């Protein structure tokens, strides 16, 4: 665990030392502010539910941008050999990098806390859904980052890593969101697709409800993609 945290610390420090992190933070602030202000008018419901809903869509492209360099950067710089010869397990490397990226992602969500502050100054919001929504966003971010870690472990090209991550994330968002709305999907398949849809899983958190099946979905999904990422990284040793 110590090694994992050390890798996470190194990862998060590297992210914050990189100017691109601040550009991402600035752009994310701008994007979320635009969304928030779209639902911020006197008389509107004092909630961040709509903002959170759209932030999920924003994350489809934002999170792969954070994760694309997680492991592929090590390949590109040749530092992967150092990591692989260091006395750490591949799983620890993947977990540490994922934790570091998650830490950075959590910092990215700071503007949402500012929005909650604005709501408090102008109304009497219900903090329960605001908090559960934030938890849901972090879990969703963690899920997308795990997919990003897998994509990043699969290639040394960051662009391919980004596109691969966006593609897989889209399966859990766009595809499972829009496909059930068509007429040719059988009901049973529709139910499965709905269950696999991240937006639907996040919806309960956004309402202010933390439900066990939703937690299981996120945690098992994160564990699965991190496991596969570890296997892919490990395969470098024998390929």
């Amino acid at each position, binding site marked *: 665990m110590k090694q994992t945290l050390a890798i996470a610390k190194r990862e998060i420090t590297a992210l914050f030392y990189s*100017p691109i992190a601040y550009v991402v933070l600035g752009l994310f602030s*701008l994007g979320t*502010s635009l969304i928030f*202000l779209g639902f911020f008018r*006197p008389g509107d419901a004092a909630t961040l539910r709509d903002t959170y809903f759209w932030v999920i869509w924003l994350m489809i492209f934002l999170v792969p941008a954070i994760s694309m360099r997680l492991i592929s950067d090590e390949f590109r710089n040749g530092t992967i050999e150092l990591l692989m010869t260091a006395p750490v397990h591949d799983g620890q490397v993947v977990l540490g990098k994922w934790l570091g990226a998650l830490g950075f992602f959590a910092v990215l969500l700071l503007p949402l806390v500012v929005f909650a502050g604005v709501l408090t100054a*102008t109304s009497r919001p219900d903090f329960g859904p605001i908090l559960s929504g934030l938890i849901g966003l972090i879990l969703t971010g963690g899920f997308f980052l795990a997919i990003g870690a897998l994509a990043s472990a699969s290639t040394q090209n960051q662009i391919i890593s980004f596109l691969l991550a966006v593609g897989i994330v889209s399966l859990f968002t766009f595809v499972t969101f829009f496909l059930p709305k068509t*007429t040719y999907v059988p009901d049973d398949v529709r139910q499965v697709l709905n269950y696999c849809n991240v937006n639907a899983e996040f919806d309960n958190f956004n309402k202010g*409800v933390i*439900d066990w099946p939703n937690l299981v979905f996120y945690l098992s999904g994160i564990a699965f993609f991190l496991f596969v990422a570890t296997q892919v990284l490990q395969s470098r040793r024998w390929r």
Partner: protein
Amino acid sequence: MSKQAPDSSAASQSQRRATYGLNVTVAIVAALGLVILVNAIAAIYLKQFSPLDLTATGAYGLAPQTRKVLGDLKHDYRIVTIFRSGDPDTAPYIRQAGDLIDLYARQSSHIQVEHINPDLEAGRLEQFLGVIADRYKTALQPTRTAIEGSLTVLNTVSKKAAEHRDLINALLQGNTVPEGKLHEELVNALQAFGRMSSDIDKQDQDLHRRLDETLPAYSSIRDALEQYLTQLDDKVYAVLIRQFEQAVRQDKVPDSVKEQLLKMNAQFGDLRKQVEQSIADLRAAAQDNTRPVREYDDVRDSINSSSNPVVVVGPHDVKVIGLESMFRLGAVNKAKPGEQPNVLFLGEDKLTGTLVSMMLTQPPLVVLVSTGQQPALGPNGQYNTVAGRLRNMNFDVRSWSPTGQMGPMGQPQPAGPPPEPQPGQKAVWILLPTMPSRNPMDMGGGPGVQQAAELLQKRLQDGDGVMLMLSVSPSAGFGAAAPDPAAQIASSWGITPQLDRVILRQFTNPDGSTYPSNQFTLTTWPTALPITKALEGIRGLFLNASPLTLAAKPPAGTQVWPLARITGSDLWAQTDLSAQNPKLDPKTAAPSFTVAAAAERDHARLVVVADPLWATDTVTNYGVLGPGTAQNFGAAFPGNTEFFVNSVNWLAHLDQLIAASARVQDIRRIGALSRTAQQGIYWGLLAGLPLLALVAGLGVWLVRRQG
């Protein structure tokens, strides 16, 4: 040896790769299987554990009553919301209703919820409406066959109209028709047939288009067709046949013309037969008022009339709840000036009530007992609105009079035996009031009152529910030899009606003169029983009500509760019912009068309402835009219908069907903001936040550069 080593090493490496690859693949597939298994278990079994509801009001919990109903479900129910997106004003309400409906699916595996956005998922909506249409296909087949047959006849008429137009044209062109009446009539007929072809084609296209809709409006298509065919029959063919028959009798008309006219008349006769047969078929279809046909019309109308309907599809029937009916404004007068009144959310009550009504395996029998010959239901009846509400809940509503009732055309019909409940069927008997009279010599009631009262007394003893609607009766004050038997029943239950008087309130004009009023609106109701507890804030109206006295010590084993109370200043009970402009009588003045009460003894239940008009269509169908507009624009006194329906539910021991008190919807809103404050927030967020991030990045970059 040295030659073999690289080959052997390569083969061994390749073998090793294959083995590792297979191992990894198996591990990944196993992990995926495990993830699917864990999620399946979570989706099925973890549902029984309550979720963590972090909302301030615990908005995502269901009432114990709802949980019980959902736990008792034996069949599968499909709840489909057809909510439109895009309107920011309705968005919070749509969201609240959608969230609630999702909770039902979470609570019961018998509930399947689907959300269809008609703006984005037109195909799915069509598919769903197709499923609804298929349910009623068999029941509606006779109507559809009659309509299609009539359209074929219409098509024939159109083709023949063109032929007749040509024939008449040829007659007129041939200059054989003498100038005069016949010539004029033929010119008119020529014009009529010319118009008819295009008119019929237009009608035909329109009716076919309507018939091809997913949920066709069969009743309206049938009526339109019937009307059109009747017009063709009466106004075209009947007239032409008569005119041509007269023409052929005239000597001045040449034989060749007569021959043509007779030929056409024969064709007109054939067409008339076909048209009349079609009309008869359509009328026969209109008489087919079986339950599925009625239900189809209701479902179709409800889906079309609500912009955001919720459709509940059960094993036996389909119900529709409009989103608008799930919300109601709270007491407006409780809101401070400039503040939005509370919006009450009735979604759970509506939805649970709907499910319960669909679960009823043996719906209760409700008998409207009238003591006069005036029918309770139908075109001349006064209780169609409340009966309609009960029928929507699948209740078996009938009317009966011990003296027989007038038929639809006013003809007297002999009295039949009272309806008999099926074994085990719950029954509610409602004694309708005799209309009030101001004649002190009027002994009240009719010849059937005694007979009806005897029946109700017996039914009460058998454990049925009884509602007595009583009317002021001048004779009551004269110590009538035979007091109102219905009032006697009430008295024996500890509820004594004072039918010799009517409650009035005195108002003062600006000039100091006074005038009485017998109209009282109520928005506050006693909360002892669920019947009226659910009515908090709902407006009700009582007219010409008499006071009820509730016994301080009711008969043994009897419990009595007030249900409606008129309160206010300058109230009194007027005993001289013939007075022209009655004045406040201090002797009978009181701050409040009870006008409705309920009682329970053993398992029998009784409701007494001392007002003859409160449940009539005149009041219940009185809309916010005037008489008869309630259905389209909302009832001015919705409390009256709700009071009636809740009372019947209570009397039938279906307490779970009574809507509980509405929940206050907790929508917290952003307060008023000055323009400066708004500008500050806008620029602070749009420019300030990104700028802050960039400044932080610049700071880090500078520090690292210096370091």
